[in-house]
């Protein structure tokens, strides 16, 4: 963990008070490493996006802390925080909502450059924008004067990635970056993220509910349910040999053309799902190593 660029150390976050609190993060710990992608998978409401928001400091942890290059962020001053924001960037789910419809693409990419690299003159900024657009495989001359509505979903997501790259970040948090794109466009975006990771040595957190794409981009994977990471480790090991009942449930539900729907008694199956869900939502404080670099939090008996 020590060489992680960014780490969450036992972070908890609870929403609501009284009888019915929502545990959005429960003792969550993980580290992001240069040149590696960590996937965070789980169903809606499992706490994936909360993890992203904790990293982006939109939420402050109730317990635990964020470590940036080994230093706790809690006491960071304004200057350190600005440096943190330049180092940690986010790509959002909805490429239609993430760009301002009243501004050109040039403006979107120029703004982070002005804020974080104030020494650049106009000519250098233009050159930097051109380089960014080329990096995400878009034609600078064609795209710069355009407005978001003139772009396809895939092009917009490339702009979001270019905007994140504008500040030379070390960490990118991508929250469902392909879920709103067509199948044929998805792969291009995933390949782009892979290229960026390899070329720029970025540490990537890839949040998704599409486990097949997680397998495509991520060396390591974490499965989250009810705010807890119930299973984590090497992607191939977790996916081929899932140990936690919730991981197995999730994997069995993933669309898979190799398995036709069976005629199993449906209500029995629903009961099984309910039981697993209820038990997985209980606190699971222990950690057990089930294989090399493959851990679970076993369910309480």
């Amino acid at each position: 963990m020590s060489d992680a660029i960014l780490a969450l150390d036992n972070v908890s976050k609870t929403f609501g008070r009284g009888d019915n609190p929502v545990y959005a993060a429960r003792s969550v710990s993980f580290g992001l490493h240069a040149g590696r992608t960590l996937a965070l998978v789980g169903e809606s409401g499992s706490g994936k996006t909360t993890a992203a928001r904790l990293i982006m400091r939109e939420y402050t942890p109730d317990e635990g802390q964020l470590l940036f290059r080994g230093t706790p962020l809690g006491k960071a001053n304004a200057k350190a925080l600005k440096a943190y924001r330049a180092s940690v960037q986010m790509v959002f789910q909805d490429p239609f909502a993430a760009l301002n419809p009243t501004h050109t693409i040039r403006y979107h990419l120029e703004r982070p450059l002005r804020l974080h690299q104030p020494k650049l003159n106009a000519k250098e900024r233009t050159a930097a924008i051109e380089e960014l657009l080329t990096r995400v495989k878009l034609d600078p001359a064609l795209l710069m004067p355009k407005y978001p509505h003139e772009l396809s979903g895939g092009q917009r997501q490339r702009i979001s990635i270019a905007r994140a790259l504008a500040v030379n970040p070390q960490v990118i948090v991508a929250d469902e970056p392909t879920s709103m794109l067509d199948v044929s466009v998805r792969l291009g975006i995933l390949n782009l993220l892979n290229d960026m990771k390899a070329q720029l040595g970025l540490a990537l957190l890839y949040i998704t509910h599409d486990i097949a794409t997680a397998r495509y981009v991520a060396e390591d994977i974490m499965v989250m349910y009810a705010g807890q990471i119930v299973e984590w480790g090497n992607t191939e090991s977790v996916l081929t040999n899932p140990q936690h009942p919730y991981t197995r449930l999730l994997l069995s539900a993933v669309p898979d053309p190799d398995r036709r729907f069976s005629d199993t008694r449906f209500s029995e199956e629903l009961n099984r799902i309910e039981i697993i869900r209820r038990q997985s939502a209980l606190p699971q404080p222990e950690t057990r190593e089930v294989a090399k670099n493959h851990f679970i939090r076993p369910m309480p008996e």
Partner: protein
Amino acid sequence: MTDPVLSIRNLNIDYIGAEKDFHAVKDVSFDIAPGEFFGLAGESGCGKSTIAFAVSRLHRPPALIRKGSQILVGGRDVLALDDNELRSFRWREVAMVFQSAMNSLNPVLTIETQFYDVLRAHSRISRAEARTRAAELLKLVDISPDRLSSYPHQCSGGMRPRIVIAICLALNPKLLIMDEPTTALDVVVQREILQRIDVLRKELGFSVLFITHDLGLMVQVSDRIGIMLEGELVEVNDAQTIYRTPQHAYTKRLWASMPKLHGEQIREGAQS
């Protein structure tokens, strides 16, 4: 072979534009047999939803179905129905679950009232009979009849699409059209819903026209699949053939762009 539930021949649909018309559906023909689960796949803008809307005559200007197109449901010419006939045709013959089915319930009416609306509009039925029927229908989709007095916001995201489906089945339609009914849902809930539909169509014998861009899911549930590209139906075959031995280059490219969950990974850079 028995007569198809749905028979589409030479369907051409244009979106009329100020300068130029957009030819959204180009000479599409296919049949759906009784009890069959038929999948229609393709990317955004390929015309798949346009076809779904046309089958229940829900398309609106500027969409225009061209002369020579034919849509038969149970042998009846849908394009020739007048307003009265259309009213009894919808729900009774063909019912449709819209995209983001979660949001197609009326937020200010109870679930019971929404069942009553449909049942009342199409048959002479008392409030009490409607309640009994609604309770039966909810049971079909594994929802407790206590829910009848709930409002949509009190039901979970997984329950709402199932309620919509139950309402769609109220009048025993021959054909259920589902236009990306589970896109906004996560995989566990999606699987619950589709598996339920699969069981129901075997029990009740209705056919399904299922629209999605998730090919993997489609192969799991469908008997036959049609692949659409820019308004044309480029390949129609049984689901396993579409998956294992796709014929059309576009179908092959679609598969090549989908990361796999297990086994050998697709090669990077399988560009379209």
